[in-house]
């Protein structure tokens, strides 16, 4: 008897829920009408998560609805990416991550998503990679390069499959240097090892090395970027020293699922562009030493294409045999 009661209760409940779920569809055309969710493919407290939570309140102001941040960490982002590929393109779910992480993962593994398919909405920051050595060692990049060419140095690899990994490979290859890469899970571990003089140098995201540089343990030698980073005014860039190294910055922003309709993208783009200009957000980005570099959807799409070609070139290096 209980079983029947339960069954009846269950079917009524299901019917009720289905009815409720139909309602939002009827409201359709004006966007946005309900809260927008930003999915972060990393855990709480990390760079991606902090930036998303930083911009959320300002986006709320211009989108007119509340903006929630949801974490979906795992597999370097792959789990979130694959889920995102199948998400409804209604504009209520956005994804934020450090580009070109998703492209690198596509080349490392078989994936059920294609970065090409995602709809770029807006991008707000760049993160450059930095070459650091222990403060007691080489004082300039030239000294370092001479030593690196004479002997194979031990370099920190801050996370296989990450943007930093690829940037490091590309940079050292273009500089003509052979490296004994020692893999770490992320910049924290490799920077710590370098600070203890267990490594010769490290390539990491600029922001992650700041505390140790301030502590006088590490010295930044080269910033992999087109022009000098305002937060690291004393660090030269390759061009100045006569080297041609393709920068591979980590670009952070938001994308929509495949086939998001253009008018919805437009509305979101507008809201984002206004949000990044808010003085509060600019304050926030200064504290985090975020390099603001606003980019709208179209400009970003071109970036995607050129990065695909680049990663293809270096994909063999990403996997160790």
């Amino acid at each position, binding site marked *: 008897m209980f079983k029947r009661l339960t069954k009846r209760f269950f079917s009524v409940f299901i019917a009720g829920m289905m009815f409720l779920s139909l309602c939002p569809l009827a409201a359709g055309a004006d966007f946005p009408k309900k809260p927008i969710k930003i999915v972060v493919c990393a855990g709480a407290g990390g760079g991606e998560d902090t930036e998303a939570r930083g911009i959320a309140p300002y986006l709320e102001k211009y989108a007119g609805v509340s903006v929630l941040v949801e974490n979906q960490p795992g597999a370097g982002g792959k*789990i979130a990416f694959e889920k995102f590929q199948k998400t409804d393109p209604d504009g209520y779910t956005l994804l934020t991550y450090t580009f070109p992480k998703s492209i690198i993962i596509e080349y490392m593994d078989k994936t059920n998503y294609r970065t090409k398919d995602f709809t770029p909405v807006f991008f707000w920051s760049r993160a450059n990679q930095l070459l650091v050595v222990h403060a007691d060692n080489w004082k300039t990049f030239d000294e370092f390069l001479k030593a690196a060419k004479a002997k194979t140095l*031990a370099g920190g690899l801050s996370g296989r499959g990450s943007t930093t990994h690829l940037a490091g490979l590309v940079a050292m290859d273009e500089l003509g240097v052979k490296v004994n890469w020692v893999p770490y899970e992320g910049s*924290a571990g490799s920077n710590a090892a370098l600070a*203890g003089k267990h490594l010769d140098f490290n390539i990491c995201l600029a922001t992650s090395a700041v505390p140790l540089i301030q502590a006088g343990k590490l010295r930044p030698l080269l910033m992999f970027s087109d022009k000098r980073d305002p937060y690291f005014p004393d660090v030269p860039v390759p061009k100045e020293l006569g080297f041609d190294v393709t920068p591979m910055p980590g670009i952070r922003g938001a994308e929509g699922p495949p086939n998001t309709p253009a008018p919805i993208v437009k509305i979101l783009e507008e809201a984002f562009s206004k949000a990044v200009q808010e003085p509060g957000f600019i304050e926030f980005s200064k*504290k*985090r030493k975020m390099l603001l570099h606003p980019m709208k959807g179209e400009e970003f799409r071109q970036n995607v294409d050129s990065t695909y070609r680049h990663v293809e070139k270096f994909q063999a290096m990403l996997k160790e045999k």
Partner: protein
Amino acid sequence: MNLSELIIQAVGSVFQWQNLAALVAGTIYGIIIGVLPGLGPSAGMALALPLVLKWPPATALIFMGSLYKCSNYGGSITAILVNTPGDSSNAATILDGYPMCEKGKGGVALALSATAAMVGGTIGMFCLVLSAPLLAELALKFGPAEYFLTALLALSIIAAVVQGATLKGLVAAALGLMLSTVGFDVITGHLRYTFGWAPIEDGIPLIQALVGLFAVTQALVLAESGESISQVCKLAGGFWEGVTRYFKHPYTVIRSAAIGLIVGILPAVGQSSAGLLAWAEAKRESKHPETFGRGDPEGVIASETSTNACMPGDLVCTIALGIPGSVGAAIFLGVMIIFGVVPGPLVFNEKADIIYSLFIALILTSFVLFLVGMTFARHFAAVTLLPNEIIVPLILVVSLLGSFAIRNLMADVIISLVFGILGYIMLKGGFTPVPLLLGLVLGEMVESNYHRALMIGGGSYSIFFSSTVSKILIFFIILSFTGPYWGPVWKRLIQQIQHMKGGRKNV
């Protein structure tokens, strides 16, 4: 401004009403989060982050810091009353805490834990405040070779845990080590044993496995018995007995706090090992090791003092160098940065007021925790009286929710259930799941640092004993492996000498 002026100013700022409120709120919230198995300090901080973003920096950091610090105590409550560690750091507390509860000394155990939280936490905080930069320097000396040896040392000391059923303990540890290889290999980038299933690509998630091995298993054991814990465990008073009992073991306290601090200071060695190492050491050095694991209060004292000293240790590298000492510390680091308090030695100059307020507040949390703990512990204990049909789903819902909430993946619930079955079979087969947990935790540290050390050393093994630290570590490893054998040899030697002396007398 010199140090004493700074401290006075910090004390003043802590006693502003909003900071005090944040302190107490963080403590209570931390305890509650800790009690829920699966939801640890990292989840608690992540979940609370949106709420605190709008607060002034000092208040927010005090809240988060108190949360982080007190969640361990919450976990010990569940460990003692329900035989389920709230977080991996409480794994050692179930070994003696629950047996004490079963013997009717649950109240004593809870009091021991609260006192340990107060004392261990205070010792840890004082070391942090007085010598953070120095300790951080020491931590930096640990490179891959040293980490490998440390992990090996931890594994060998833990062998003491399984002295009762050595072979089975080794099997469990081997299984744990094996499971730790599942997933993405940091060194080669190769995916091992994942069979294309994304949720385990980062490896078997530790908390989900912990929830399965302990919480789900315990729920199954209870379901099978059909009883409530209270018939399986009586709760007599004895809270003050616990407090006074704690102070009768000063040597254990000091040693455990030291272990906890050292484990905490080393980034990459997390809190899970701290409690177990202290427990194992206490057992080894005890005059009656066979009582450990059966409700010896010293076991609870050791493991809880250690884990409570570990958390301030975690903060040492986090604040002094910006290198997080654990997952929870990493989130705390993120929070610090959001509020513009960039860690590093400069932070002691630039944001001295905030940092010292934080330190003073954290020292205070130890005492607030003790008060809250003692007042409410008996109410928590009511959970042991709940009827079977409520307590079983309660444990399941709360712990599986914790499992789920970390990545919002239903797959994690499946992982927990699988580990639940494994834990149950192991229990029925006479295995302890604790060595498995430790193998799972330490496996990666052993393997990846072994490879890294060889890579740096160019393939030569000399790197494993070149530095002073590594020589010290090797000495301890040899000591701990051969330790159990010295006892009988020593005794026989003494007997021989006495015999000879006696013989000569007779002649």
